[in-house]
Structure formats: C-alpha cells, structure tokens
C-alpha cells in the first residue's frame, strides 16, 4: 500500500509541488500583509483580512484539488495504469485507496501552511477574545479542509473519460459551483453534514465506476 501511495504521489508530483508553492506563497504574503501592510486597529483588520484572504486562496486551491482528482482518473483510463498494476499482486481496492490517500495528502499539503500562518498571526496579534483564535484555527479550518477534499472527490468523477477537454472543464465548473457551499452554510453542523455526505457519495460513485470498468 505504501508503495502504491508513493507511486501516486510521484505520478502527480506536479500537483503536490504546485499546491506546496501556492500555500507557501500565500502564507508568506499573508504574514507580510498582516505585519507590515495593514494600518489601523489590528483587532478589526485581522479578522477582516483573514476572511478576504481565505476567499481569495480558496479558488486556486480547490481548483488544484479538483484537478488532481480528475488527472488521476484521466491518466489511469488513458494510460491503463490500473491494468498494468492489476497484473501485480494488488487489487483495484488497493489502487483506489492509495489514490484517495494521495489526494487527501495533497489537500493537507495545501492547507497546513496556511492554517499554520493564520494560527501564528493570531497568536502574535493577541486578539482580545481568545475564542476567535481557537475558532478560526479549528472550526473554520476543518470545514475548509473538508471542502478541499470534497473538491478532490468531485474531480475523481470528472476524470474518468478519454476526452482531454471534458475533465478539465467539468472539474473547473464543479469546483467553482462547490465553493459557495461554505459561504452559504457557514461553519456549523450543516456544512459538516453536506460535505461529509457529498464526499461519501463521490467516493462511492468513483469506486463504482472504477471497480466496474474494463481495464
């Protein structure tokens, strides 16, 4: 399983590198903005800038996650990677689980630097209400992480085709449709319910497609 995960990461290293670079660039610019670029009451500007920044980075990151899912399935179908692996001592289930774990790792790589940056800033600034710090670092990050993973899972749906244009456009469209869910539903139990159900549904459908396809 570990070898399969490594192989998935190597095959899609471009996404991992891109997500890491994006996350580091955004985190660095975010930290710079917070400490040097903002005038006025930091207690007012920090939450405002954090929210604006979150919305700003959500789009490229979620598109990257969705693209990774679509890319994994597209290259598998066109290059017959699973057909080759199936000749070895691995099952389709192993291949699929390794693929999803690699996707989840990508989401973590995209999120952890940004989450760290936000937590660091809030610790430095010293918000008047410690709850905001804890809330932003946990209650906002977990739904965001789920949203990223949901985008990846939606990408898995879009990629299982031989057409090169379709997965790109569908992945882009679906991820843009999905981003507003966090704005609409906020950060309460409803967003957890919607995203967990969506992730489960996407994984079931992707597994069904993958397991019933002729290799």
């Amino acid at each position: 399983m570990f070898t399969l995960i490594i192989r998935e990461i190597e095959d899609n290293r471009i996404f991992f590198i891109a997500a890491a670079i994006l996350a580091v660039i955004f985190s660095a610019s975010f930290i710079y903005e917070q400490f040097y670029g903002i005038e006025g009451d930091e207690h007012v500007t920090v939450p405002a800038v954090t929210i604006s920044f979150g919305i700003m980075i959500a789009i490229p990151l979620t598109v990257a996650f969705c693209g990774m899912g679509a890319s994994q399935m597209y290259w598998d179908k066109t290059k017959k990677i699973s057909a080759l692996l199936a000749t070895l001592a691995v099952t389709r289930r192993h291949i699929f689980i390794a693929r999803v774990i690699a996707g989840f790792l990508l989401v973590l790589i995209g999120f952890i630097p940004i989450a760290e940056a936000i937590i660091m800033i809030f610790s430095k600034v010293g918000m008047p209400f410690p709850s905001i710090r804890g809330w932003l670092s946990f209650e906002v990050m977990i739904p965001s992480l789920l949203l990223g993973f949901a985008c990846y899972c939606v990408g898995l749906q879009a990629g299982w085709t031989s057409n090169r244009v379709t997965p790109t456009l569908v992945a882009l469209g679906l991820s843009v449709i999905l981003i507003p869910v966090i704005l609409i539903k906020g950060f309460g139990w409803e967003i957890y319910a919607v995203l967990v159900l969506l992730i489960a549904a996407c994984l079931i459908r992707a597994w069904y497609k993958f397991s019933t396809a002729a290799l």
Partner: protein
Amino acid sequence: MNKQTGNPINIMATGLIVMVLLSLVLFCGRFFCNTHLIYNMPLDSSRVILSTSGLIPGEPAPKRVVEEEFIRYGHVIDQNEPNFRYSMVRVYIEKYNVLFSAIGALQDITAEMAPCHDVNERVCYWSYENSGDLCFDKRTGLIIRRYKLSDPNNKSLFVDYFAGPNGISNTATPSLGRFYDPILIGSYSTDFYDKKTHCFYAIDFDKREVNKGPQLLQGDGREPIANQGGGGLWWLYGVYNEVLSISWSEPEIFHAEKDKWEPRRGFLPGEKEDYGFNEGDWTRTYIPVLDKTGRIHIYNTKEQSLTQCGYLPAPHSLFESEQQNEIANPRNVLGYIFCPVTAIRRLPADTNKLPPRFDVKYLGVCVACVSREGTAMAVAVFDPNGKLIYRGDTQTNMVTSTSSGMVSTASAVYSKSPIATTTLFLLENLQPPVFEITSYLCGDCIEASAGHRALFILPNSFVGMLGRYNGTKFDKELFLPLLMGPSLILSIWLAFRVRKDAKILGLSGTAKKWWTVGTIAFGLPAYITYRLTRPKETLVTCQNCGSMRRPDMEICHRCGSKWEVPELTPPNWRICD
C-alpha cells in the same frame, strides 16, 4: 460482477451529488433574483418615520410621515410648527443585512464575536478597551468583571471581581455560589436572568452587591430569550448585523438667538419638576426583555417587577394580511428591535460624596419587526401601560393601469420587478416537488434567518409563503397547484421521458416503476441522475421484431425472441492437396 447489488447505491450516491450541486446553482440564481427585488424597491418603502411618537405627555397621537420630510435648520420638522419638533421615531430595514442573512459564513463569524466563548469556557458578554470586560466562567459558575487600572508608568493593570448569587469577591470562592445558565439582559448592563433557576439578578460591581430579582415559575411564558442589543463587539468589528435600525429623537425647540436646536424638557402629569426625555434608560432602571412568544416585558430593576409592555407586531407577508393585534413569533421574523423611552430627572444629592440619584419614569416603547422574507416591516408604539397606540407597515405607491394607491411592500416588491419575480418563481420550481411540498407543510419550522440559507427546503419560497397563509384552507389548496404547477408539469414530463427511455433500454418493470415515481418526486435532479446512471450499452436491431434491443440480454426485451444463431452445417466440399 457486483453490478446488480452496487447499482442502487451508485444511483443514490449520484442522486445526492446531483442534488447538492444543482441546489447550489439554484441557490445562487435565487440569491441574485432576491438581490434585484430588494434593491429595486424605493428608499421610502424600507422605512417608517413617525413625525410624533406620541410617547411624550402632551404630544398628539403618533403620525406617520408619508410625504417628503420638511427640513428646516437641519432638522425634520412639522411644517405647521417651524420652530418646534415633536419626538420622532425612525425605523429602517437595512437592505444589505437582509441579503447578508443568506451568507452563513458571515453570520457565524459575527455570532462568534458576540458573545464569544473562549478555550477556558468563558462567555464574553461585552468588552471595552478602556474599562475591561464582563464574562461568565462556565467552570466556576461565576460572573467576572475585569477592571482596567492605570498606573503612573502607563502600564495596564487588571483587577478581577467575581460575582455569584451570594455576593461579590475579589477571589473565586465556593461561598459565592454559582450561576448555571445566565443570559445578559439589556445592553452593556450587568443584569442577568439565570435560565436554570428562572431568577433575575442585578449585579452592581461598584457597590459590591448582588440583588436577587423576581423568580419565575417553571414554564412561565415571560421567560426572557433575547439579549436586546447586548454586547458591543458587533459595533467594535464594524459588522453590525441587525436587519433593522431604530432611532427615537427627543422633542426639540429652535432657539433663534442661539441659532440652534436644543432638547425640550417637559413636565409629566402630577410632577412639579421637569424631566429630560431619553431613548433607552442609561440608569438601567427599566430594561425591556423579550419572551419566546413575542411579548415584551419591562423589567424594573428597582422594584424587581416584570410587566408586559408590548409585543412584536406581525409584519405582512405576500399571502398574509396581519391583523392589528397579531403577535409575531421571534423565530418567524428575520429581525426585531425595540426602543424604550424614559423621562429622567436628576434628584438633588444629599451630600456631595454620594453618587447622584435619578427619578426615572417609563413612557413607552417603540417596536419594529421585519418579515421572514425581509420585504416588509411592521412598527408599533405602546404606551406605558402596554396599550397599542400606533401600528404601521412599510408601504409603497403602486400605480397600475386600473388604480393607484399605497400597498404593502410584501406584495409590491414582487410587482415592481416582473422579470426577476418570474425568474425567481421558475428557479423555485426547478426544486424537487417533494421539497416544495415540505416547504409548504413545515417551512415555518425553520428559523427565519436560517431560511435564507436553505438549499433544499425553502421556507421563503412562494410555496413556503403560501403554507403560512392565514386565510381559508380552500384558498390555500386552490393556490397550491397553481404555484407548484410548473414543477409538477416538469416532473411529470421528465418522468414520461424516463419511462419511455427505460422501456427502450429494457429495464425491468420494477426499475421502471421506481424511476417513474422517483422522477415525479424529485424532478430535475432525478432526471439528471437517470441520464448519468442509465446503462450505456449500444442497442442493436432485433431480427425478429425490428426494434432496438440490448446486446447484453439473452432475449429481446420487446418481443422476447432469442438470438437467432445460424445453424453451422458443414460444407460438402473439402480442400485436398
């Protein structure tokens, strides 16, 4: 192959994905339509201005400003009284905030700021940069007031005081007792109601006193729910998230010699001294509290009494025409606000060392409510005895080919923009019929603000509004098919298409039945799900009946004939060397 067992799960998973994604697209469409509808309304339709509130003794009954305001010397005044102004009430619907109700992330962030809960399980009620803050420690059950002291080195020092039901101390000791579930009543005050012990408490940190107020019986309808205006954090962060704003202005008189307006003091019946008139009560003697039924009570902190002083007036809705005395449930209105009016006179001090004393009289309260949809507002004014002296609603002038006149904004908002209304109606009809029926039956179970963020069950849709219609059952049942008509027609047409396609594909009778019922119930999402999950086999022509048949089935699903396999008879000739 696990196709047979896996297929229903795959269909349900696909259906869920389609449902969520389609609902998000439809939500965005509805949001843009609602934005257009609300912003298309003229300014005067989102406000109610009373040229006299009628609460100051000697003033005429409340009167609404219908025409353009008459402004002189920078103030809105009555044209007949150019140098004098009665007390006025202005109530506005904040259009931006009505739309922000649909953005849950913003709601959650602002809700987290006031009041806020920290990692040490403390509920912060308010916080001032200069005077510290007030919070409730869930762990000890004590209310903590932090004072900020300044020392000569300009360093901030903080001193904490802990209040329990038994007193106040500078250390948290068990002898203070504990509060269980206190809610702050009044803005920036230190008056509480403990929801578990059903008791009011007035805490005076300056005098180091905790006064126990009236204790309600369990199930008493007067139990307060609202912390009206509590917490300054909303203002602090500039995210003032109320959908209504209210202001009461005191009576004023123009002094020509000074060339400025000055507040007019006045005499109350039976009083020899004159009083100043105020919006709210900064002495914290009279605090308005709201119970869950929509009744407003005045909590007298001096007499420790609780008296009903008014109620939330029910605003109009598209299919509703509320009656004068109908009370709105706080859950069913998008926002409410109330403003008590008091007369305050400073009493002569006994000695210079004692703090000043005040004589406070309660004069009445102005209350406003905005409808669930955010399209209409009701304003009411109650006298000191809780008697309704004014009731008004937002209205706008509508001119049609047959008539013209003032109509409620609840219906006018849809008439002013026919294209946006039609688009909104059609978008709502793309929702599954089963959700529309649920919206009709139990849409009002969803809290008003949450209704703006609903993806599946839409309490603010036309069908949802019809469900709350207070007319006859016959009218409701007459309108329901009309409002759901496009949705039902679309579902039935899609079900017909699905059934036809399923027949061509040779799905089993049970599968055809389920798909037909499912498409009628879930409409467009079910149809998209069917298109995504239907068998992808390429059909071939049946040699027996000539119809298209499935190559993966042993018999033709149209005529039942088997595959015609040509008999392999050996040829008579042989190849020889």
